[in-house]
C-alpha cells in the first residue's frame, strides 16, 4: 500500500505545473461552491429560523395594512393556541435613512413565551420590563452599531411621528439578547408597545401582525384555518400561515433573482469541474504505456485501477478541502461586512458536507473512465502502441 502511495505521489509530481493548475481549478470550483451555499442560506435564512409551532396572521390584503389590537386577545382565546403576541413595522433607522432595520413594537412580557430561543441576562430582562423606553436589541445589531447596555440612543422612525411631530424616538438599550447563532435573528430590536402606542401621532391601538405559538405543530393548518374563519367577513379579514410558510413566501418574493444567481453559480461550478476533470483524465491517458509496464511486472488489475483512482481522488479532495476552507473564510468575512443588508449569510455544516461529498464524487468520476481503461488494458496491445 505504501508503495502504491509512493507511485501516486511520483505521478502527480511528474508534471508539477499541470498538477498545480488542475488543483487550483478544483480549488476555485469549491470556493464558488462555498459561496453558493452561503448565498443560498441567506435567501432562506427566515425559513431556517422559523419555528414549526408558530403561526403568522396578517391583514389579508397586504402586510402594510394594520389590524386592531383586540384581535390578539381573540386569537389567544382560541383552541390549540398556547400564546399570541403582536408586532408592528416601525421603519426604524439609526443615522442613515437608507439603512432601515427590524425594530418591532411588541408586548415584551410575552416575547419569551413565543420565542424561547432568545436569551438575555436576568438582570437586564428585569431592567427592560421596568424601563418604558427600554429597547431589547440583538447581539449582532448591538455590535454593528457599537451599542452597550445602558446607552441612550435616538432612533428615527420612517413612518411614525410622535405627538409633537418629531420622528426621533429616544431609547435606552436595556437588554441585549442572543439568538440561535444565525445572525439573522440577532439583527432585530424590540420596543414596548405601550410606549409606541401612547407616543405616536396616529394609528392608536392598531398593530401590524400577530404571531401565535400553538400547542401542537401537527394542527397548524387547523388552527390557522380557524383564525381566518374567526375574522372572515369582518372589515379586517386575515391571512394566517406557518412562520416557515411566511418566511418561504417572503424569500420567494426575491424569487427569480436568488434562483438565477444560484443557477449561474451552478453552471460555473460544473464548467470548472469539466475543465479539471478533463485534465485529470488526460494525465492518466498519457501514461497508458507505463500502466502496461506495471501490469507486465505483476501489478494486478485491481491495484492499477486503485492507483489511478487514488490519484484523481487525491487531487479532487485536496483541492476541494482547500477550496471549501477559503470559501468558508470568504463567506464569514462577507457575513460580518454585509450583516446589515444580508443577515443570515453564513457557512453551514450542510454546505461543507455536501462539498466534501462532491469532491469525492469528482475524484471518482474523473478517475473512473481512465481507471476502467487501465484495468482492461491489454498489455501486448499497449506495449505495441508505444
Amino acid at each position: 500500500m505504501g508503495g502504491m502511495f509512493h507511485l501516486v505521489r511520483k505521478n502527480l509530481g511528474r508534471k508539477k505545473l499541470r498538477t498545480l493548475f488542475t488543483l487550483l481549478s478544483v480549488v476555485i470550483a469549491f470556493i464558488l461552491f462555498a459561496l453558493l451555499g452561503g448565498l443560498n442560506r441567506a435567501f432562506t435564512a427566515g425559513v431556517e429560523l422559523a419555528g414549526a409551532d408558530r403561526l403568522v396572521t396578517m391583514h389579508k390584503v397586504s402586510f402594510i395594512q394594520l389590524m386592531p389590537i383586540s384581535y390578539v386577545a381573540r386569537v389567544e382565546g382560541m383552541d390549540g393556541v398556547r400564546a399570541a403576541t403582536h408586532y408592528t413595522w416601525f421603519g426604524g433607522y439609526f443615522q442613515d435613512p437608507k439603512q432601515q432595520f427590524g425594530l418591532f413594537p411588541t408586548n415584551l412580557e410575552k416575547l419569551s413565551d413565543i420565542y424561547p430561543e432568545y436569551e438575555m441576562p436576568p438582570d437586564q430582562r428585569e431592567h427592560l420590563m421596568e424601563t418604558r423606553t427600554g429597547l431589547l436589541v440583538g447581539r449582532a445589531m448591538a455590535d454593528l452599531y457599537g451599542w452597550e447596555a445602558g446607552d441612550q440612543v435616538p432612533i428615527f422612525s420612517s413612518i411614525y411621528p410622535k405627538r409633537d411631530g418629531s420622528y426621533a424616538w429616544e431609547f435606552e438599550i436595556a437588554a441585549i439578547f442572543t439568538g440561535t447563532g444565525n445572525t439573522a435573528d440577532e439583527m432585530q430590536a424590540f420596543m414596548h408597545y405601550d410606549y409606541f402606542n401612547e407616543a405616536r401621532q396616529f394609528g392608536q391601538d392598531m398593530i401590524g401582525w400577530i404571531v401565535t405559538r400553538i400547542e401542537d405543530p401537527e394542527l397548524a393548518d387547523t388552527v390557522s384555518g380557524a383564525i381566518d374563519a374567526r375574522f372572515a367577513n369582518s372589515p379586517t379579514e386575515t391571512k394566517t400561515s406557518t412562520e416557515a410558510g411566511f418566511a418561504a413566501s417572503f424569500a420567494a418574493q426575491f424569487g427569480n433573482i436568488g434562483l438565477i444567481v444560484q443557477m449561474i453559480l451552478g453552471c460555473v461550478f460544473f464548467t470548472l469541474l469539466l475543465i479539471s476533470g478533463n485534465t485529470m483524465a488526460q494525465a492518466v491517458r498519457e501514461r497508458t504505456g507505463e500502466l502496461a509496464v506495471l501490469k507486465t511486472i505483476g501489478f494486478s488489475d485491481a491495484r492499477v485501477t486503485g492507483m489511478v483512482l487514488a490519484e484523481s481522488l487525491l487531487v479532487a479532495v485536496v483541492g476541494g478541502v482547500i477550496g471549501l476552507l477559503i470559501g468558508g473564510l470568504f463567506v464569514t468575512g462577507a457575513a460580518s461586512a454585509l450583516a446589515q443588508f444580508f443577515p443570515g449569510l453564513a457557512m453551514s455544516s450542510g454546505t461543507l458536507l455536501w462539498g466534501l461529498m462532491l469532491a469525492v464524487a469528482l475524484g471518482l468520476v474523473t478517475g473512473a473512465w481512465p481507471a476502467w481503461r487501465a484495468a482492461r488494458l491489454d498489455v501486448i496491445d499497449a506495449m505495441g502502441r508505444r
Partner: protein
Amino acid sequence: MEQILVITLQNLKSIPGRLGTSLVAVVGVAGVVAVLVAVLSMARGFENTLESGTSPGNVIVLRSGSSSELDSGFQGDQARIIAQAEQLALVSPEVYVIVDLEKKSSQTQANVPMRGVGADAAAIRSDFRIIDGRMFEPGRRELVAGRGAADQFAGLAVGNTLEFGTERWDVVGIFESGGGSAESELWTDSATLQGAYRRGNSFSVVYGRLDDPGRFTEFKDALTSDPQLSVRVERESEYFAEQSRALSTFVSVVGYGIAVLMALGALFGALNTMYTAVSDRAREIATLRALGFTPVAIVVSVMAEAMLLALAGGLIGAGLAWLLFNGFTVSTLNFSSFSQVVFAFAVTPGLLVQGIVIALIIGLVGGLAPAIRAARMPIVSALRE
C-alpha cells in the same frame, strides 16, 4: 514576418488533432463570458427599467425622512400646497399601497404596488399608453395594470375582477409606460384608493412636471423653505437611480466576483491546454528552431493559438448569454421600495464587448508562459525526446 505567418497557420491547422484539450479551454472561456454577461445584463436591465420612462422635467416630492414612496405621506392640505407650486406645469398627488397578488412563476404571494393617481398622472409619465382595454373611470372600483405586472402576476387580464379583502376591483385596461417601473404597478384613481384603504384625505407622494426643467432648484428651495412643509424634493430620475442602487450594486458585486474567480479557473484550464499543446509538439518546435525559425516566431504562433481559442470561447459565451438572456423578463422584490419590480435582462453591446475583452485577457495570460517555454526549449534535448 513571413516565418511568423507560416508557422502560425501551420499551428492553427493542427488544432483539430488536439480537439479535446482545445475544446476544454474554449468551454472554460465561454462559461466565464456567458456568466459575466448574463449577471451584468441583469443589473443593467434593472437599472434600465427604473431609469427609463423618466423625463428630465419630472420631480417627485416625498416626506422628509422617508426612504421610499411606501413610507412617505402627506395630509391633503400639505399635498395641496405642493400641488400649487407655480413652477409645476402638471401635478398628480398619489397614494401608494401594496397588494398581494400571486406570482405566476412560483404561485406565491408577492407585494405588488398599487397607485392611486391624479388626473395628470398619465401626462406626466412620458410614453404612457393604454395598449388593451380602456383607462379607469374615476370614482369607480376599476384599475389598469402595467404591462410587466400583467405579464408576471395572476389575474390581471382585462375583464377580470380582483378581490382584495372585501374589496372588488375590475381590471379594465393594460398600459405601458416606456418600459419604466410604472409598468410593474396597478393604477386607479387616488380618491377611490383613499376610500378603499381608509386613508382619509392623505397622499403618499406628489409627482409633477416642471414648466421648465431648469427651474428645479427654484422649485426645491421654495418647498423646503416653506415652514408648513417638511419635504424631500428630488428629480424623478435621481430618485429612481437611488432606488435601483442597492439591488444593482448587489448584483454587480456578485457578478464581478463570480466572473473574476471563474476567470482564474478558466485561466488554469487554458494554461494546461497550452502547456499540453507545447509539450506535445516539443519535437516539432525543436525541428522548426533547428531549421532557423526564430524564437519570436514560435512565441507568436503559440500566442495566436491561445488567443484564437479564447476568442472562440468569448464569442460562444457572449452569443449564448445574448440568446438565452436578452429580454428575459423576471420580477423581484426591490429592497428599497419593498415592492415588486418587473424588468427584462438587457444584454447591451457594451457588455458583449466587455465579455470578449475578458476572454482575450485569459487567452493572453494563458498563452504567454507556455509560449515562452516553447521558445526557450533547448533544441538538442527536445529533438531527442
